[in-house]
């Protein structure tokens, strides 16, 4: 079956020349969709099969110089959970889908309100009141139909998180308060999944990667009681900060999925646009 699929993929692919003047067989999304229907396979599996046979889904062509064909196959076979799809998680979703992560679990119980429009990429003037997970589902379908999603329209808590993140290789923190983040950290550790934390306030933000067994958020927030809302209410949430922090979170996710070294484990990236500060500090 796979040999038939492979020869069909090679038949429909087009000889193309890459920007660095190398010839390759290019597969359009339209052709891949047709083959998926014909062979009753998922689009993602068709793309993986194509890559295994040196047929390049054109949508990933510009990824390959950076992550390679094997890296792209790894991403397509990966599962990532995003908890919260607002300013951080919405941006992370967009980038992970464009990278070609094969399966994304999206957890968010909120609906859009007008004050989200300044920063949350999934919010639009015309979808105020819409469930964020529904907007996420539509966006994924528009950008990359090969990415399979699983949506959970619930407010994440310590009890429901383990079941929802189970099977993911990485969890992305797209939350907006410390108590929920501590619950997410606990659930991620319980399930043995690395967590990529990001947070913002005004023009300041931070990113760190926490593996099970690492001290994690207590090195950043200390221990003790934290209110659900903090400095960000006073300093606001302008769009540039979540966009940058979420981008850095996605970089961490990709590195973890690909098994690359040099993540922000036991280190924290701190950024301050206003003071022009960007530093990576050890925390232990």
């Amino acid at each position: 079956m796979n040999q038939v699929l492979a020869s069909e993929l090679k038949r429909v692919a087009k000889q193309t020349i890459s920007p660095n003047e190398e010839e390759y067989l290019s597969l359009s999304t339209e052709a891949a969709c047709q083959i998926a229907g014909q062979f009753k396979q998922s689009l993602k599996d068709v793309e993986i099969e194509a890559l295994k046979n040196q047929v390049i889904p054109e949508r990933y062509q510009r990824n390959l110089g950076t992550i390679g064909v094997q890296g792209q196959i790894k991403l397509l076979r990966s599962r990532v959970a995003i908890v919260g799809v607002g300013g951080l998680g919405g941006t992370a979703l967009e980038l992970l889908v464009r990278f070609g992560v094969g399966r994304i679990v999206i957890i968010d119980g909120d609906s859009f309100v007008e004050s989200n429009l300044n920063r949350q990429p999934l919010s639009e003037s015309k979808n105020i009141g819409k469930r964020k997970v529904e907007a996420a589902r539509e966006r994924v379908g528009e950008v990359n139909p090969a990415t399979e999603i699983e949506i959970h329209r619930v407010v994440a808590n310590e009890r429901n998180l383990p079941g929802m993140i189970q099977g993911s290789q990485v969890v992305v923190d797209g939350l907006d308060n410390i108590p929920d983040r501590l619950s997410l950290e606990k659930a991620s550790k319980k399930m043995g999944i690395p967590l990529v934390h990001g947070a913002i306030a005004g023009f300041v933000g931070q990113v760190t990667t926490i593996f099970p067994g690492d001290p994690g958020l207590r090195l950043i927030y200390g221990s003790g009681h934290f209110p659900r809302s903090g400095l960000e209410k006073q300093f606001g949430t302008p769009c540039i900060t979540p966009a940058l922090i979420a981008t850095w979170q996605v970089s961490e996710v990709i590195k973890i999925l690909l098994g690359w070294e040099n993540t922000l484990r036991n280190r924290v990236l701190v950024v301050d646009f206003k003071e022009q500060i960007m530093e990576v500090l050890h925390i232990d």
Partner: protein
Amino acid sequence: MEVRVKLMSLFEEYQKGYPDGRVTLEEGATVLDLVQQLGIPEKLVRILTVNGKQGNLQTGLSEGDTIFLFPPAFGGG
């Protein structure tokens, strides 16, 4: 002794009395003494460096040290 303090913008209100970042402390002062003199709530100071190296509230300070204080960001959404 005199040290230089640099704060992230979330802490800028605490730097108002020290526009050039120069703070005079007693000999033998620690980061905690500096934080208290600036009026920053201690629980907000978790990540800091002294002359580019990771420090903590108990780190002792010397003449001419440069201290960066990073507040944790809480939000997202």
